[in-house]
């Protein structure tokens, strides 16, 4: 495996991203040292390459990507993986608000807890949160799935149109147009398969609650 290393200590986000894009064609893996919680890192990468951050990233880490597998060995700020259309963004620590906001496809994984509005306006794809997720998780969700291993805050799946939110812990309250539905056998297989792929150990999948839209046309009638 050909590995390219970037020391971001004295580079601007634009310079880091420029180096990532130059190296993405030639190398299998890019390691970024000293990302220092800066914003916009690894934005818009469309190559099938592994990217590893040796530390935290700031806002919009790994946003608008299509293809790379990004691992953040630290925390992420707001909107990690925003508008992802393919590939993976894996955060080993915590993340701020709007994790996986507006994703079209691909997977965003946060191993610990996140802030509010996780997966807002997501269209497809998968978001996994290893800890708790805050207020209005899944707001305006239009597809895809969110899996929360911890608790979830108020108004989960507010104004959801399509998609599903699985929650293992406590649900503080449901948002408008959200309802809890019985997990099917197929659902449990799907959740188990996704979680095992990302090395989450869950003893009993039946603990999960499934939240879906009450209506697919909540504003305009049937």
């Amino acid at each position, binding site marked *: 495996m050909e590995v390219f290393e970037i020391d971001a200590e004295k580079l601007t986000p634009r310079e880091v991203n420029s180096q990532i894009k130059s190296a993405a064609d030639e190398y299998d893996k890019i390691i970024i040292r000293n990302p*220092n*919680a*800066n*914003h916009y890192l690894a934005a818009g990468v469309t190559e099938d390459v592994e990217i590893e951050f040796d530390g*935290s990233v*700031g*806002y919009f880490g790994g946003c608008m990507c299509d293809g790379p597998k990004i691992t953040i060995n*630290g*925390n992420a*700020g*707001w909107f990690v993986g925003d508008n992802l259309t393919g590939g993976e963004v894996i955060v080993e*620590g*915590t993340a*701020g*608000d709007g994790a996986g906001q507006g994703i079209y496809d691909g997977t965003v994984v946060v191993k*610990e*807890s*996140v*802030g*509010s*509005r996780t997966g807002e306006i997501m269209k497809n794809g998968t978001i996994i949160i290893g800890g708790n997720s*805050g*207020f209005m998780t899944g707001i305006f969700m239009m597809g895809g799935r969110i899996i929360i291993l911890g608790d979830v*805050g108020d108004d989960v799946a507010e104004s959801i149109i399509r998609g599903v939110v699985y929650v293992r812990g406590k649900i503080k309250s449901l948002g408008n147009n959200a309802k809890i539905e019985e997990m099917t056998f197929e659902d449990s297989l799907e959740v188990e398969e996704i979680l095992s792929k990302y090395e989450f150990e869950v003893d009993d999948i039946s603990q999960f609650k499934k939240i879906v839209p009450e209506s697919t046309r909540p504003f305009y009638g049937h």
Partner: protein
Amino acid sequence: MCGIAGIVYKDKELHNIGNDMTNMLHQLQHRGPDSAGYSIYGGTGLEENEYILKIQVKESEKLLDKVKHAINFITPIKQDAILPSVGDSFIYKCKISLDEFSQLKPLITKVDTIDDVIVINGSHDFEMIKDVGSVLDIADRYDVRDVKGTHAIGHTRFSTESGVDRYHAHPFQTYIVRDISVVHNGQITNYWKIRDPLERKGHVFETFNDTECLVHYIADKLATGYSLEEALEQSVEDMDGPFSYIIGTPQGIGIAKDKLGLRPGVMAETDDVFAIASEEVSLREVVDTRHVEQISPGEVMVYEI
């Protein structure tokens, strides 16, 4: 946008906190390029009845004499210095004694009546430093890195509703309760609903800035027996709009965030330090950020020493 930060050393000892806060705010410079400011607590070394005044004076012949005369008429100036600044004014800093804290606001009002003079700050237990320009320029201008203290709050300002000048830079303070100051990121959209009852109670507002309203609100609560945590919790109920703000008091700092969580706030803590900021990039200057906690919508956090 604005950036806010706060730090407390848990051992209550003096630390190079001016340097720490400068580093924290420098990392938040992108959130606000217009002005920056600090409230640094615990290191003033003043006697119980002593106060520091910082007064913006326009470069003009004999104007400073007029200021000194106005102060000396009420209480003798014990010590003073001129701090050069930018623009057509400088900062006059002086030490005075007052029998009662309640005498401070009338004195400031008196000095403020002089044309081309604005009292920026009057305090006992904290040093307020604020000005237009970048964090590093301001830190150099006022030797902030040398200021010691036990805890501090700070701000980088992206102005929205009011002018860009030294007075409108954060922190803001009140003279209702001694040594309360605030830094704020956001807007209080029910500003008049909060301000009106406070004015009827006798609070004097100097600006139309919503941050000034916040510090009056909290001071009012503290003056009527609320703890800082209770005051912050009540503010989350009473204030509308997107906000996160940090209050500094002689005992510590506290943060409150609006119920929709529309402004950021993160916290990290070790055995030695409690730190809060708009972004992790700021926290990592002073504390191990392997575990960063997101401050939730409507959440309040207080650390007092």
